[in-house]
């Protein structure tokens, strides 16, 4: 089956549609659309990226930019069609270690889910079952993929709890989620997602619900565990600080599409898209001297049903009139290479961008 789809894929541009993905995870032109009474919600609309083992990709964006939907799409958690006949419409390709997930048999994906790819959710209190002990939930996750008896699985659960830094793991394994504090719950969740040594770990806003000192502990833990297990990690967050801490590569999403992608250093020091400039400018920073005013992005994020024509960012962009012929309002920009391993979807020419960046943006950041 995988052979077929491999040979069936079109050979074309280097990223899109090449048949044999060399990367560990490769997502090509992923689209996740939800039909609703008001129209089609295009939560993710053509997303392409790849990720190697041992690397971390940070996906940043505001609420409603499609970052969480992307992660659920990779995990195959949308196809369940919980809204009756109104299923999410997913298209594109997701290659995980040589297997295409979207066309694969659901039973096969279920075997991979948890074992090959696991997820850490934002809110550990609602992601953990309140009726079962932490231990029972970790044991369940382990025994689904490993044919071992309960004792062995329990030992494994205790070992994992110990690894993620829960004190007295042999006692806490029998605690219920409500007996844990927020940070401990998130640790337990991480233990559960790592119990099968997954190769791909998706952390969806892993620290948003936590206090800053606990956040520091969890970020540290994720980093250490990644080093230890060598997994590929996708971190989804709205916090640029968290992304900078963890990521090797950064993907900025806006209105369901990727508007900039590149190595973390490049995205932070030589951002190419006006929206990325806006994100960096609207954030008060502790590591810089006090600035008098923040530079916000005007307006608010677009509706995913009626995306603005042309560039989705054009109504909020201060430089929408820089490219000529009103092109920003009529033609949707595609990702184009703006540096080595660095892409941005913007109509401005390299010179225009450089000029605005050096003259207007960089001095204010």
């Amino acid at each position, binding site marked *: 089956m995988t052979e077929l789809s491999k040979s069936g894929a079109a050979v074309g541009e280097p990223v899109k549609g090449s048949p044999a993905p060399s990367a560990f995870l490769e997502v090509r032109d992923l689209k996740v659309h939800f039909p609703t009474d008001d129209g089609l919600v295009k939560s993710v609309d053509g997303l392409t990226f790849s990720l190697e083992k041992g690397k971390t990709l940070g996906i940043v964006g505001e609420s409603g930019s499609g970052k969480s939907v992307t992660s659920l799409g990779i995990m195959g958690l949308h196809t369940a069609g919980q809204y009756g006949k109104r299923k999410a419409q997913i298209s594109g390709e997701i290659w995980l270690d040589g297997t295409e997930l979207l066309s694969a048999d659901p039973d096969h994906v279920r075997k991979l889910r948890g074992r090959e790819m696991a997820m850490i959710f934002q809110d550990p209190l609602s992601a953990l079952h309140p009726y079962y002990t932490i231990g029972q939930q970790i044991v369940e996750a382990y025994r689904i993929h490993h044919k071992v008896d309960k004792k062995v699985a329990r030992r494994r659960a205790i070992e994992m709890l110990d690894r993620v830094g829960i004190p007295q793991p042999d006692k806490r394994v029998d605690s219920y989620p409500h007996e844990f*504090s927020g*940070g401990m719950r998130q640790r337990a969740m991480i233990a559960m997602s790592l119990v099968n040594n997954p190769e791909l770990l998706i952390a969806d806003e892993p620290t948003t619900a936590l*206090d800053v000192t606990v956040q520091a502990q969890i970020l540290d833990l994720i980093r250490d565990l990644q080093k230890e297990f060598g997994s590929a990690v996708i971190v989804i967050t709205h*916090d640029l600080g968290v992304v*900078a801490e963890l*990521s090797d590569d950064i993907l900025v999403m806006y209105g369901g599409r990727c508007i900039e992608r590149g190595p973390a250093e490049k995205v932070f020091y030589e951002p190419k898209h006006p929206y990325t400039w806006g994100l960096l400018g609207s954030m*008060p920073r502790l590591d810089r001297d006090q600035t008098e005013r923040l530079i916000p992005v005007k307006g*608010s994020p677009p509706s995913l049903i009626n995306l603005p024509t042309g560039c989705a960012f054009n109504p909020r962009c201060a430089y929408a009139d820089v490219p000529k012929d009103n092109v920003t309002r009529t033609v949707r920009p595609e990702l184009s290479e703006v540096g080595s391993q660095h892409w941005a979807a913007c109509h401005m020419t390299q010179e225009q961008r450089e000029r605005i960046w050096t003259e207007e943006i960089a001095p204010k950041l």
Partner: protein
Amino acid sequence: MTPSAQSGGATLTKDAAPGETLLKVTGLQKHFPIRKGLLQRQVGAVRAVDGLDFEVKSGETLGVVGESGCGKSTMGRLITRLLEPTAGTVEFEGKDITHLGVGAMRPMRRDVQMIFQDPYSSLNPRHTIGTIVSAPFKLQGVTPEGGVKKEVQRLLSVVGLNPEHYNRYPHEFSGGQRQRIGIARALALNPKMVVADEPVSALDVSIQAQVVNLLDDLQQELGLTYVIIAHDLSVVRHVSDRIAVMYLGKIVELADRDSLYKAPMHPYTKALMSAVPIPDPRRKSAKSERILLQGDVPSPIAPPSGCRFHTRCWKATQICKTTEPPLLELKPGQQVACHHPENFEDQAPQDTVLLTVAKEAAELVADEVLAESAATSAAVAAEVAAETPAKAAPVAETPVAKAPATEAPVAETPAAEAPVKETPADEK
């Protein structure tokens, strides 16, 4: 410690504020009783706020930071008298409002308004924007010049909304716009003080900046006094003139913004600031600057004895366990409650044996941080000892005398070489 500092107050405020004390809080406490059993007997109390003393001066912005459960929101509700304090006093413009009843509080409500955290639950979904923003006029029996409707529309345009949206309902607005509606409502009666409880934490980054700028502009135009409660240290630094750091119902440090961020004295403040992720990938490798705290905040039902931070502090000694450190003004405009402050002379130098917890905690703190902190403390102590007769030299400087050139920028302060060379006192 430095007696001359008593009236020094906020000298680093952005603009020359009128500087009169608008709000004065002394010994403020709020204990929520825990009741159990058939008779609902009180078996304990959540000591949400446990003895606060601070002042808010007219025209300034006081930022309050702390982790969840430290009592910062309860504090906000106490000073706006949405909650009845258990003990202590709240004085507004010199008038004691601690135990005023609902009716007696009503005239005061014109002067103290609140902006709430969640713009989704703080607006009645069945009322139009016009009704919501005009509610304060109705409740206070005030008829503004030109009629209520005109005034509401003016307020809407002040906060950057379209005045024609008067008849719309909250669900028709986005989060950022709703927060603006909440701000318009708070401003309706032209208050003197606005208490904002996490005004931007529910908003997206790009919208956050819009609201922060709006709050800034309104303060400039209307001369407002803000108490801004937030957990985000970078936002608090941006908006505040002075900052209070809370931990388990107490203020552990209260200082001018710049002193606090440049040279925090309380170990908790230092840890809190170092924990903020810096949006700079080049700093990723410089992990050693971070101070990782162990475990979680203890329960406010049974807070630790002595200094409440001693269970997680890497400098805790016996005295921290037994004696609660008072909130003292160690430097002009910088009040700290700590026996062994950072960036300053040790308050209990005789007590040097670390607690076991502290030793464990210290393992998590990088050696450079410890060395640097020890060096600065020793240097300050030496300097203070040397200059007690002549106190002309600035106390705030942290001379790096014998300390190795450390790269931790958390406490980077301009090194004052001159005074060190003059003082023969060495670092012991």
